[in-house]
């Protein structure tokens, strides 16, 4: 509630590329953060830094079997990489529908059980283009068992201008065709859902003066 949420370029750009790759489908994914010392629960008065994301599905989002498989694999991968799942993103199929539905809330609840300051990100479909000024996303956080809109003043974007520049460059270059989600991985398990290649492209494009993403 009162803690800030900060988004890295890597997380935002991949989320956007995922939605761009499947414009006629609903898509979803989980948001990751580097673990701080202190372990479970919210860092006291600190910031939730969303450093990465894993794109999940673009079909049958409400069917649970493959979601369970994906979340378990991601949990294990996170543990190795000193990361944890801190949120969930979702883009509805319909252009004008930005509201979180039952599936979104259910998955959000599951994540919130493990991480108190979990954040839900809904993509504002109609704002996604090459010209948005502000990030085309709406954030929700849990308060008293209900999901409410996150105060916009508490949402930070690490180097927004750079993030947008990288997002635009990759969208124009149609890099979204190389974005792999878990559905793609299940279709062909040689495909890498950690998106190592896209991560490298994003790192390369981000301003070298920044240091880390």
């Amino acid at each position, binding site marked *: 509630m009162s803690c800030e949420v900060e988004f890295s370029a890597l997380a935002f750009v991949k989320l956007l590329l995922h939605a761009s790759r499947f414009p006629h489908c609903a898509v979803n994914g989980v948001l990751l953060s580097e673990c701080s010392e202190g372990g479970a629960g919210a860092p006291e008065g600190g910031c939730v830094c969303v450093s990465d994301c894993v794109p999940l599905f673009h079909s*049958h989002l409400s069917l649970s*079997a493959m979601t*369970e*498989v994906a979340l378990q*694999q991601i949990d294990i*991968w996170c543990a*190795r990489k000193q990361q944890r799942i801190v949120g969930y993103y979702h883009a509805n199929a319909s252009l004008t529908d930005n509201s979180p539905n*039952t599936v979104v809330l259910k998955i959000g609840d599951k994540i919130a059980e493990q991480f108190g300051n979990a954040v839900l990100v809904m993509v504002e479909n109609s704002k996604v283009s090459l010209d948005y000024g502000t990030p085309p996303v709406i954030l929700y956080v849990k308060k008293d068992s209900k999901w409410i809109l996150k105060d916009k003043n508490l949402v930070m974007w690490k180097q927004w201008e750079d993030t947008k520049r990288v997002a635009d460059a990759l969208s124009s270059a149609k890099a979204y065709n190389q974005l792999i989600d878990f559905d793609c991985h299940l279709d062909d398990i040689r495909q890498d859902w950690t998106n*190592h290649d896209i991560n490298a492209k994003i790192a390369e494009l981000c301003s070298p003066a920044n240091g880390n993403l």
Partner: protein
Amino acid sequence: MASVSDMYDVTWEEMRDKLRKWRDENYRNSEQIVEVGEELIQEHASKLGDDVWIIYEQVMIAALDCSRDDLATTCLHELQKQFQGSHRVKRLAGMRLEALERYDEAFKMYNDILQDDSTNTAARKRKIAILKAQGKSTEAIRELNEYLEQFVGDQEAWHELAELYINEHDYAKAAFSLEELMMTNPHNHLYCEQYAEVKYTQGGIENLELSRKYFAQALKLNNRNMRALFGLYMSASHIGASPKASAKVKKDNVKYAAWAASQINRAYQLAGHGTKETKCSLKAVEEMLESMQIMPS
């Protein structure tokens, strides 16, 4: 801007054949279709013979998908000139109106077609598509059910109905629609696997057992279906760990789960040969399977 034929070193015949393949297999790779198709019709229309009309149709629909109204209108005009008064072309004009979100006009266009020919299934389906686009899922479902009472063999419609029910979380009705599909397509592993996923989502031990059986059936039909393999593993594991299952059922399911686990491991070992990144998945899967190891009771 480099042409497709230059960039990918392909001839116009290859481009035409690619478009045919995408048409036959119903791919929705609209950006690619527009890229290849636009060049084909601009540079090579005269060589295409009668194929040109179906290509105009294919490119037009892809252009609508990519908001290329200019290209869509060009294709539409060519088709309207050639096939005056055609319902098939009228439907395309309706789709263009839909793309422009002029739903009322599109609706009227489809109703005109249906007045002339009440059996025109394409126009009826477009009307249902409009309802879907407008977020009116309940009405879309109702209309689709009515349609299926008349056209009970329409596979595409049954599948669409299953999708609509899944989106509305009405898994029982989704399962019913998929049962229809499985009856008429007993060799289709995707329908079995989707049915199994719906049953799994419904939950409860009976549904889990059904889901396991259908995941297994999907695997029998296509032993490379990873979703079926994972699904078999998950459903068998859950049954094996369920307090409601009898000792025999538990024992059997633990065996099935163990078999599935070894197959999953094997598949990932084979896939993992090569890149470092796929080794990540392999490790994650190995650990996942270990962590879910069921202790036989």
